[in-house]
């Protein structure tokens, strides 16, 4: 029984790492632009498709494919911020509606270009295994956890110790103050959006070989990412990390006690419960009254 639990915890950490990659991007964007990017799921999907494309058409290395996919997503992120979100700044309703349009555009665009069926993606790491006690995990599983840890640490150091990272933190605390102090807020915004898109893209490229690449692959991570940042606290970067991991582990462990059909419903219930009981999440500041 202990072993089954450990297995699910590690599974949960892996899924949680994916959620963290999505949640982190969303929380950064929210902090700097005060917008929840509902299109984050399709950015994740594009990461998977682009990674698959680069791996099969351009380069032979999985790592390079991920990097290329990440860079392309960064570019897409900049285009989206400057072309869609910036012009609509100040109007929350329209920004959200535009992001819904992006979901339709990108998700169906992927179907139109690659077809509705799932794509297979074989990489070596899914077929090599590591033993932990009596349990066996693929290198890929553990790699996802490690890569996410590295990325989170790197992001943390970047935000804390570099000038631009500090500018990002300042802008998310107060846009007005940041402008007054001379921070290039616009540049902060499109850079942050690009970072968020890149993180989502990496997530998609990492998950592709594991669970197939298919058009709706970003829908569930979007919801999990949302649940993660609500749990951790809207606007809190450490909260997004903890929230994402916590959600992943809770879901996986729950499969030991509940029918697996209901695993995804846990995220929805977490969302509703958190909003009812403790809207600021575990680490968030008091909710702004968005009146």
């Amino acid at each position, binding site marked *: 029984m202990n072993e089954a639990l450990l297995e699910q915890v590690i599974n949960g950490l892996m899924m949680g790492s994916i959620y963290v990659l999505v949640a982190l991007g969303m929380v950064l964007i929210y902090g700097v632009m005060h917008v929840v990017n509902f299109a984050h799921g399709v950015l994740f999907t594009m990461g998977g498709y682009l990674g698959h494309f680069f791996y099969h058409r351009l380069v032979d290395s999985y790592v390079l494919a991920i990097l290329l996919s990440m860079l392309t997503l960064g570019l897409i992120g900049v285009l989206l911020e400057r072309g869609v979100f910036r012009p609509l700044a100040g109007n929350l309703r329209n920004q959200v509606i535009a992001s819904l349009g992006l979901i339709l555009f990108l998700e169906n665009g992927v179907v139109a270009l690659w077809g509705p069926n799932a794509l297979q993606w074989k990489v070596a790491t899914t077929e090599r295994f590591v033993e932990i006690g009596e349990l066996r995990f693929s290198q890929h599983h553990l790699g996802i956890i490690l890569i996410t840890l590295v990325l989170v640490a790197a992001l943390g150091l970047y935000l804390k110790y570099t000038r631009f990272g500090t500018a990002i933190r300042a802008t998310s605390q107060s846009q007005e103050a940041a402008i007054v102090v001379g921070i290039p807020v616009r540049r902060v915004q499109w850079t942050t959006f690009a970072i968020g898109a890149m993180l989502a893209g990496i997530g998609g490229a990492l998950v592709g070989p594991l669970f197939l690449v298919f058009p709706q692959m970003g829908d569930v991570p979007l*919801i999990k990412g949302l649940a993660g940042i609500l749990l951790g606290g809207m606007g809190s970067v450490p909260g997004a990390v903890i929230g994402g991991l916590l959600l992943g582990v809770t879901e996986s462990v729950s499969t030991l006690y509940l029918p697996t059909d209901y695993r995804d419903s846990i995220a929805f219930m977490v969302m509703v419960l958190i909003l009812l009981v403790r809207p600021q999440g575990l680490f968030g500041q008091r909710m702004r009254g968005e009146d």
Partner: protein
Amino acid sequence: MAVRRFLGWLLALSVTAALLSAPVWAAEHPYVLHMMVLICIYAIPAVGLNLMLGYSGLVSLGHMGFAGLGAYTAAVLMVDARWSFWSALAAGTVSAGLAGVLIGLICFRFRGHFFMIVTLAFGLLLHAIMNNWDAVTRGAAGFAGIPRPKPIAWGDTVIAFGQLPNFYYLALALTALVFALQYLVVRSNLGRILGAIRQDERLARSRGVNVLMYKTVVFSLGTALAGLGGVLHVSFLRVAAPASFTMLESINTVLIVIIGGAGFLVGPVLGAVVFVALPEGLRLANEWRLVIFGALLVLITLFAPSGLAGLLGRLWARLGAGSKEPGP
């Protein structure tokens, strides 16, 4: 001025005549009638969302979850409990409306983003129930065997709803009723209150409006209409599937409302027509249909936020050049 009024009446009359005589002029092309039924089926929940989003400023992202709730309630009542279509229709509508009251009261503790996210979460929850509660909903495989309304005998004639033209008239009648309801609500004191809530909630409160109560009223009215559309939908197709009530379907409804023109009476109908008929008219391959709509939604939000109805309204105003129209 008189020319415009004349044109307006002419337009209204021609459209009405065309709608009422559709089975005649579309006799050779039954798919046209089929499409028009689909337009009605999309338009009815869209009217509900228009009342919420367009007139009251409530951005609900889980609308089709309620359509599914109404649809499955009616399905179970018709198939398992042998209720008549009409009673099941009423039950589906009412149950969706009641769910709207309960869920709305929870959602209204939040504003802005958080409100949208909770509505999204509830939409997903409702879909998950449809998808997983196999014992009642038959799960992901879908609920087959949903009947059309039983034939009605009127003197010597028998109206069988298994026939497309008759079901078309039923759909048309329900849509007209829903449309009339929208008009009555919007052009009444209730409409003024909802408009005040949309424009400035704090101000509305200080002028005596119980904002929570009225939000609940419009939310449950909107979800009831979604339920009504859902029942019509599954009776038409004779099958209910969770895939018709997903998050993406809710997004499609938002699309219909926005492209048609949020906050305009004709918006939902225009949007439904564009959504169903445009791809057919342009002979678009199926995959590209939603790609184009997604792009359209983004473009409309950027450049023409008042949608088709807004654009047509401006054109109409220009036709009557010289009159001052304070547009929304």
